[in-house]
């Protein structure tokens, strides 16, 4: 039971982390809380389903196309809806909240109420160290999720674009004085935040099929990860996601399966009581 709960905690945690990275990026760069983050996750799941099922594309191609499509949609959303609200955080908050409701209604109208599932990349289950059977698709999700997170951190650390992101999130004015076009960076960051949600969506939708309203808990968990890890800290997101995944699964295994998500909030309260700025957050002072 312990080995299974740790393995499952890592798998779920990696996906939580991936979703939360998108939120953290947008908050860090733009100071915008995107309430529709979960809906971009769902949108990617639907795209992946459409490309793979309806158009018959290879699942990997369908995934890449879905992430690219959500990235572009994210850019359009930033340009048309978010950009006019700069300077007033409340407006962007309300706007993304409305966007979330509109997207949910559109999903219901277009895809119907039933769950949609893109095809599995791999079938069956593996006997892990002779201890338990574990779904191959989940193991593939663990590897894919970890790979996307590694790529994202490599981009942050090793590229000029990553340097611009870090510089802007640390000091926006100084970054502008050094010639960074922060408006364009905002646009690309929002698109990238949506693309990270999309990556989580396409990786996880073969395991958990998407439904019109399934984005709400996704976004909520992502926000909890960000706060738990520390606002603005990318490593904090990863740590937050993994902690949540592990706590949920260990709690379900050894305490009760009926309060899985309660453990998530309990750990959040506990951490914030001890470290109000989160696990990796910097204190205001």
């Amino acid at each position: 039971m312990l080995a299974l709960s740790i393995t499952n905690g890592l798998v779920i945690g990696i996906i939580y982390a991936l979703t939360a990275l998108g939120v953290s990026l947008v908050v860090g760069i733009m100071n915008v809380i995107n309430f529709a983050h979960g809906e971009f996750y769902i949108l990617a799941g639907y795209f992946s389903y459409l490309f793979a099922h309806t158009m018959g594309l290879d699942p990997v191609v369908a995934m890449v196309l879905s992430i690219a499509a959500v990235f572009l949609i994210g850019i359009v959303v930033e340009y048309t809806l978010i950009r006019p609200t700069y300077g007033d955080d409340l407006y962007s908050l309300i706007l993304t909240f409305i966007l979330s409701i509109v997207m949910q209604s559109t999903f219901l109208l277009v895809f119907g109420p039933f769950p949609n599932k893109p095809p599995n990349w791999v079938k069956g289950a593996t006997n892990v160290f002779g201890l338990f059977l574990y779904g191959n698709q989940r193991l593939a999700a663990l590897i894919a999720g970890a790979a996307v997170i590694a790529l994202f951190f490599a981009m942050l650390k090793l590229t000029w674009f990553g340097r611009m992101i870090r510089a802007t999130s640390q000091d926006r004015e100084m970054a502008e004085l050094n010639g960074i076009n922060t408006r364009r960076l905002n646009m690309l960051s929002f698109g990238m935040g949506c693309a990270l949600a999309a990556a989580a969506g396409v990786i996880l939708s073969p395991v958990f099929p998407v439904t019109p309203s399934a984005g709400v808990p996704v976004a909520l968990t992502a926000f909890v990860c960000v706060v738990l890890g520390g606002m603005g800290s990318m490593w904090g997101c990863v740590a937050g996601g993994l902690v949540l995944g592990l706590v949920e699964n260990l709690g379900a295994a050894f305490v009760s399966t009926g309060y899985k998500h309660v453990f998530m909030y309990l750990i959040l309260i506990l951490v914030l009581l001890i470290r109000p700025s989160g696990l990796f957050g910097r204190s205001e002072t």
Partner: protein
Amino acid sequence: MKKRLFFLSVMTAVVGMALVCAPVYAVDTVKIGVVGPRTGDAAATGKAFEEGIQLATAYVNAKGGILGKPLEIVFEDTAGAPDKAASGFERLVTRDKVAMVLGESHSSSALAEIEVANRLKVPFVVVEAWADPITAKNYRYVFRAGPSNSGVVKDTIAKWVVHEGFKKAYIVAENTDWGLGIAEISEAALKAAGVSYASLVTERKSQDHYMELAKIKEFDPDVVLAFIYGTGLHYFVAQAGEVGLTPKAVVLDGAGPPSLWPDFWTNVGDYGNLECFVSSMHKQVELTPLATQYREAYVKAFGQAPTDYKSRSIYDAILIAADAVNRAGATDAEKVVDALESTALLVTRGTARFGTEKGGPEYHQWMPPMLVIQWQNKEQVVLYPPEGATGKLKR
């Protein structure tokens, strides 16, 4: 010639304007409200309700309507949330002036709605919300033309478990009024039948059931009674296959419709084979001529055979409501309640008759017969009751 043309043009314009601007007289109808989830996690039920409403409205109106007027259904979305359900119910009564209200498929929502029905003194026929307290509260205005938790467990599930000779059962229930209620009744029924059992609670919105399944696997049951509604059931069945719980153990979907949703097979893959579910509908077990008529009308309207039995449940409820108002001779609530109490109407699932003895959940309850069906190579095989069986359990 030009004058004549001008005159004709002016006259055409005047007549046209007159037609457009003529006061629109609303057709006098008898309004009946329906409550159910058209959005949210169980929006599929809303879709099934819409289908049943369409067919029932056509049927009732073809037979002369209600009190000589056409029947009009006003469908209020509850999104599966008790607060929205209660306010939606109240809107139907105060804004739309409906004669009575039907529907609902969430017990938590229905429990909120019955309080409004009782306060506003409006007849309410619950259709697919199974929690016992809905009728056990013995409210005069509340009826149920559909399954109750105790009815389904005592008449069908527990008897089926004994019939198949299962020795060990595991009960998995979502943490809702329906799930917790039916789990408690199942535990008592299994205990009385001498079947060894264990149980656990899972979160209604949980997608990941690996931990639950690990605990179930440790118990090594013959049968798993899964009281999980919606997409969660798909996750459960698929994951039960992944961890190797099935096919050694048989999984029974204790609600039914999710095993019949169009994407069931896409979501669960081969793990769906040999899964069992509760249902009140099977094309080979049609209890009345109206059931056959319903299936034919459904195929004609929607181009395929009906799957989600909840479309037929709301259909029956509308027929029961129309019959009651017609017999009452008015939309007066007291007269309609009296008429409902003396209902003896042949609908698709048998003859609808409401219990009138107070003191338990049987009051104002009509329990239609339920079936246990198993998927065998994507074919529905009726296992229980024996008199309706079309095959035997496969493991």
